[in-house]
């Protein structure tokens, strides 16, 4: 690969990452919508926002779906952050439902 080709390839891959990020954000928001609905239900049923057992299941499920090249601990770290944010939106929607 000559220098010019390499530079063109770098641009192409960076564009590809941008396209993937757009899909990731869309999917994360789809996931957040479910979390918001769950929060509303938890508010109605007066259930706790933090359920360690369920969070463990979510992590295991994500790890099990992993086919690499990310290793399992990397997937776990990424999903911990996703769960943190889901817990937050659940809490907000649960307390909004509570006060209605």
């Amino acid at each position, binding site marked *: 690969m000559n220098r010019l080709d390499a530079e063109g390839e770098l641009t192409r891959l960076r564009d590809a990452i941008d396209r993937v990020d757009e899909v990731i954000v869309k999917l994360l928001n789809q996931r957040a919508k479910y979390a918001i609905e769950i929060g509303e239900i938890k508010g109605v049923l007066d259930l*706790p*926002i*933090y359920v*360690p057992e369920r969070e463990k299941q979510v992590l295991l499920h994500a790890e099990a779906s992993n086919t690499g090249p990310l290793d399992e601990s990397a997937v*776990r*770290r990424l999903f*911990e952050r996703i*769960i*943190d944010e889901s*817990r937050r939106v659940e809490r907000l929607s649960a307390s909004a439902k509570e006060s209605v």
Partner: protein
Amino acid sequence: MVIVMEKHTAEANVEHVMSELIARGFDVHRSTGSDQTILGVVGDITTIDPREFELFEGVQEAVRVSEPYKLSSRTWRREKTIVNARGVEIGGDKVVVMAGPCTIESEHQLFETAKRVARSGARVLRGGAYKPRSSPYAFQGMGVEGLKLLRAAGDEFNMAVVSEVMEISQIEKMLEYVDILQVGARNMQNFNLLTALGQVRRPILLKRGMSATIQEWLLASEYIMSGGNYDIILCERGIRTFETATRNTFDISAIPVIDKLSHLPIVGDPSHATGRRDKVMPLARAIVAAGGDGLLIEVHHDPEKALCDGPQSLYPDQFARLMDELRIIVPAVGRAL
């Protein structure tokens, strides 16, 4: 706040801490490492004491990363507070000099001293009516009669007046006569008094306790502010150290530190810090040069005959000379006198 869990602690311990935090309405960012888990706690953590979480099973350390004080912090209010005491602005462009005797002893003493300091450019008259002394046998002050004299002298020479409040029962009477209520170093952590002062609407000059950290001092101001009284002037007056050459060691660095951490104005009291007349003038110059918003200086028309703190009181002529020196220093730090 960041909570660091012990290495290889049981998952149940992590869950217990997380449950407690989430139940209290905080968001938790969990980060599981290969052998240690760290929890980032997000929310208004000024209400919790990190030490409480160090008692939880499996917690190695809980560290606060934001200040425990809120209303007095720069984060809460970016622009500097300007306290207005009977038309005198403290914390604005002008450096304000408050001067007068340690204790009001007589009409003659107070008026004589007030006349001299006013002529030299002091804009606030100080004078103690209730004097907390290290010895119970020392002169304890003139009380309400002293306050009446202070008000009369302030009006006569067109100065606002400041005097120390010792206890809650004195507040009501003092409001009749005094423009700024001073809380002394010994009372800085008298939380009942601070809470009561939060209810009044009159500027408070809060001295730093002689062994108080800057954080404790700002937390003391928080007691007053949480009651709704936001007009607070902080006053550095020296802290206890191992040095015996001066009575206290004046913490000059407190001035820029407070300026960074808080929006409240800060003044310095070089008289109590050193306890010696010959040290008062150099220290006063340093306070202004370091960015202090004002000075609190003891002046007595006849210090040899003073009933209280004579050795640290300036002669009126010395005070006049100091004011002349300050007129040279003040423009160099972008202020006026």
